[in-house]
C-alpha cells in the first residue's frame, strides 16, 4: 500500500502532532507514504470567493498525484471534502474541466480523474481492514468512553464524498471500538464543529461547538476524538480559551484519532505528540491496561 500524503495548510502550521501521529501509526501498518512538496491549498477557503479558483487549486493537487501515479491519502476532512467536491464537478462538466486544465497546462499538469482520494480513516477501515488493525493493537483501553466526531465535510454531501452513510455513520465508531474504548452513542456526532464560522461569526461558531461538546459530555464521553485539524483546533485551541474565560467550564479533552490508536498500538505518547495538544489529555493513558498487567496482578 502506497499513498501520496496530503497535509493541507493547517496541519504543518498548527497541528503538527496530527502528522506525526498519523505517520507513526501508518508506518507500523506498513503503509508507504509518498511526499509531494508541490502540493498547495486544497481550495477549501477559496470556495467562498471564487469556485473556479477553488477547482483549479484542488485539481492541481490531484493532477500532481496522477503524475506521480499515487492515490491520495488526506488527513483533513475539509481538504478531503474539497478535493472530492472538485473531482465530482470536474468529472461532471467538460467545459469547466477544459478551463481548469488550461490553467494547469502552464505547469505541464493535467487533471484526468484517474486517482483515488481517500481520507485517513477510510484507508484504515477499508484498505487495511479492522481485522488487521486489531492484530496491531497491543494494549487495549478499558472503561474508556469516547465520543467520535465524524466531521461534516467528509460525511456530506454523501453522494459526492462517499465516506460513510450520512444518516447513520459507523466507520469511525468501528475504528474507536477496536482500541478497546467504547464509542458512545450521541445525537450530535454527525453535526458540524463550528470551525467554518470561526473568525466570521464567533458567537454562532462557539454556540455550535458548545452544543456539540455538552451533548458528548451528557452522553458520558471521557474524551472526544476527531480526525480533522479544523475540528481539533476548535475543540483544543478555542475550547481552552473558553475554559480560561469561564471558570464553570467542564473541558472535554480532544484526542486526534491516530493518537488514540497509536497509544493502543503501543506507540510512545511523545512520538504521538500528545503533549503538544493544548488541553492536557495525559489521563487518557490511565485507561490503558495491557493483558500482561492483569496477569501480574
Amino acid at each position, binding site marked *: 500500500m502506497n499513498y501520496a500524503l496530503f497535509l*493541507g*495548510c*493547517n496541519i*504543518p*502550521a*498548527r497541528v503538527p502532532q496530527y502528522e506525526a501521529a498519523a505517520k507513526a501509526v501508518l508506518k507500523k501498518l506498513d503503509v508507504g507514504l509518498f511526499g509531494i*512538496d508541490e502540493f*498547495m*491549498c486544497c*481550495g*477549501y*477557503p*477559496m*470556495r*467562498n*470567493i*471564487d*469556485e*473556479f*479558483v477553488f477547482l*483549479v*487549486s484542488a485539481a*492541481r493537487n490531484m493532477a500532481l498525484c496522477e503524475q506521480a501515479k499515487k492515490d491520495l491519502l488526506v488527513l483533513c476532512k475539509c481538504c478531503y471534502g474539497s478535493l472530492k467536491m472538485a473531482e465530482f*464537478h470536474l468529472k*461532471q*462538466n467538460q467545459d*469547466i474541466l477544459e478551463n481548469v486544465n488550461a*490553467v494547469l497546462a*502552464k*505547469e505541464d499538469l493535467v487533471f484526468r480523474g484517474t486517482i483515488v482520494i481517500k481520507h485517513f480513516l477510510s484507508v484504515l477501515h477499508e484498505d487495511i481492514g479492522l481485522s488487521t488493525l486489531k492484530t496491531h493493537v497491543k494494549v487495549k483501553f478499558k472503561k474508556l468512553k469516547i465520543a467520535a466526531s465524524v466531521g*461534516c*465535510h467528509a*460525511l*456530506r*454531501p*454523501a453522494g459526492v464524498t462517499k465516506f460513510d452513510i*450520512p444518516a447513520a455513520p459507523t466507520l469511525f465508531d468501528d475504528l474507536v471500538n477496536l482500541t478497546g474504548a467504547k464509542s458512545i452513542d450521541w445525537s450530535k456526532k454527525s*453535526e*458540524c464543529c*463550528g*470551525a*467554518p*464560522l*470561526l*473568525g*466570521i*461569526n*464567533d*458567537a*454562532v*461558531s462557539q*454556540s*455550535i461547538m458548545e*452544543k456539540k461538546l455538552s451533548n458528548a459530555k451528557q452522553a458520558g464521553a471521557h474524551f472526544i476524538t476527531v480526525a480533522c485539524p*479544523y475540528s481539533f*483546533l476548535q475543540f483544543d*485551541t*478555542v475550547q481552552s480559551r473558553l475554559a480560561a474565560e469561564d471558570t464553570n467550564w467542564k473541558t472535554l479533552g480532544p484526542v486526534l484519532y491516530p493518537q488514540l490508536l497509536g497509544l493502543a498500538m503501543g506507540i510512545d505518547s511523545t512520538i504521538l505528540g500528545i503533549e503538544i495538544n493544548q488541553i492536557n489529555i495525559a489521563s487518557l493513558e490511565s485507561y490503558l491496561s495491557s493483558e500482561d498487567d492483569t496477569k501480574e496482578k
Partner: protein
Amino acid sequence: MIFDILFYASVSICIVGTCYKVIDWTKKSVANQPSPSFFHRFSSLIKGVAATVFSHNIIGLFQSFFIDVLFQGRILKTSLLRWAMHFLIFSGFMALLFMHALDKVFIEQIFPWYYPTVNPFFFLRNLFGFMVLAGVGIAVYRRYIQIPARLKNARADFIAILLIFFIILSGIILEGVKMTSVSEFSTMVEDYAGLEYEDEDTLALETYWVKDFALVSARVKPPFEQDVLDQGFQLHETSCVDCHSPNTSAFMGYAVAKIISPFALFLDKFNAVTFFYYVHILACFTGLALVPFSKMFHMIATPVSLMTNAVEKKHGPKDRNLLTKQLMELDACTHCSTCNLNCSAGMMYESIKNDYILPSEKMQVLKKAVGKKQLTAKELKALYQGLYICTNCDRCTVVCPSGINLKSLWRNVRENFIQQSPDVPFILSTFSFVRGLNPGNIEKEVYAEPLAAAFKKTISIPEKTKPLKINARADGVNFTIDLPLVDTFSHCFGCQNCSTICPVVACFKTPEEELTLLPHQIMYSLGLGLVDMAQGSAMLWNCLSCYQCQENCPQNVTVCDILFQLKNKTFKNLQDID
C-alpha cells in the same frame, strides 16, 4: 588622487546611505501601522540588541552566522542550483574583496610576499572572478531561461546582476589589456627589472614575452629566432620570474589578451590600460555607493534578518521591536521567489492574476509603500485581496532563504488593513479562520467592528411593507454562473426541511430576523427570480457549509452549493480588480 577622491566619496555614500536606511528601520512602519516615536523605537532596538548579545542567545547568533550567513544553509534547503549560484557569487566576491580590492589591508599583512602578479594570487584572482561569473551565469539562466513557476523579475534584480557582471568583466578586460600592452611592459622592465627599454637585452625579453605572455609589440613579430628566445627566457628567469608568474595562470585575462591581440597596438596607443582601469574602479565604486540603494543592500539586511530570526522566536504584539524588524525584513528580501514557488495560494494567483497574492510581490509593494510613493486606490484594493487570499500555511516563512518571518508580517499588515477599511467582505470568508483562532491582543470591540461593518455592507434587509418586485424569470435567473446544477432551486416544493435542520438557524431565537432569509426562503426567492434579495441574505455569511440542508432535501435541491454560488457572486460584484 582621483582614485582617492572616488574611493572616499563612494565609501561615504555607502556609509551615510546605510545609516539612513537603518534609521528608517526605527522610524517608519510597514503599511502605516501605528508607531511609537523614533526615540522610543531606537532605544528599544538598542535594548533588544544588548539583551540578545549579553545572553545565552549569543551562541545561537554565532551558530546562525556560520550556518545561515556564511554557509547559506537555508538556500541549500531550497535548491542545490540556487545555492551553487549564490555561494559562487558570494564566496568569489568576498575573496576578491579581501585578496584583491583590499589587498594592502588584508592579504599583505598575512603574506608579506604577496604580489598581485605572483601565483597563487595571480591565478586565484581569476579563479574567484570565474566563480562570480559562473554564479552570475546560473542567476541569468534561472531568472530568464529556466524561470521556475511564479518567479517574478523586477528591474532591481536585473540591475544587481548587471552590476556584478560589469565589475568582474571590466576587471578581466583590464587584466587582458595590460598583458598585451607594450607600454605596461616597458614600465615594468624599467621599474622592476632595472633594464632600459631600448636595450638589446630587453628586446630578447620582449620577444620571449610576445611568444609566451601574450604581449603584442610593434617591433617584435614572429617568426622568432630560437637563440633570441633562449636569451629572453634567461633574462626572464633572472629578472622577472620572482614577481611575475606566467600570464597563462590568469586564464581569463590571458584569454582576453589573446582575443584582443589584433587591436592591441591600437588600444595601447590610446592608453587603453588607463581607460579600462578607470572603467573598472568606477564600476566598483558605483557598486559600493549603490549598496544601500539597491538590491545589494541585502548584503547587510539579510544576515541581520537571518541572525535575528534564528534567536528571536517571539513575534507577537509584545515584541517592542516588531515594527523595526518588519522594516529590516523588507530590505532583507532578495526577491528570489522561493516563497512564490511554495505558496499554498499559488493556484489562486494563477487563476486571478493578482500579483499581490504572491508573497514576494507583496514584499515589493510594501517596500514601495514604505518609501515615499503613495499606492493608488487600485493597488491598495489588489493588496488587500492579496493579503487576504492567504491560507496561513506559513510555508513562506519556513522556506524563506533570508529567514524573514513573513507570517507575522502578513498577520500584522492584514489586521491593520482590516481595521483601516473595515467593510471589505473578505473578512466574511473562511480565510478569517486564523484571525478567529488567534485574535492575540486585539481588543474585543476592535476585533468585532470590521465583521459588523462587512455584514452591514453585504446584507440588505428586504422592506416587508412594500410589495416585492418580481423580475421576469428570463433575466432574474441569469444565474448559472460557473457550475452546473445550480438551477435546482426550482425543484423546491417548500417543505422547509433545510431551514429546520440547519444548525445555524437553530442558534437564533428569531432566526428570520437575524438571518433575514432562511435557506428555504433563499430558494423561494431564487425561484421567483429575486436574485438580489437572495444575495442580500445574512444566511449566506452564516452558513457553516455542513451540508445538512442539501443532504436532507427530499427534492435534491443543492442548497449549500447554491449559497456558495451566491457568495461568489457578491465577491465578484464587490471585489473586481481590473
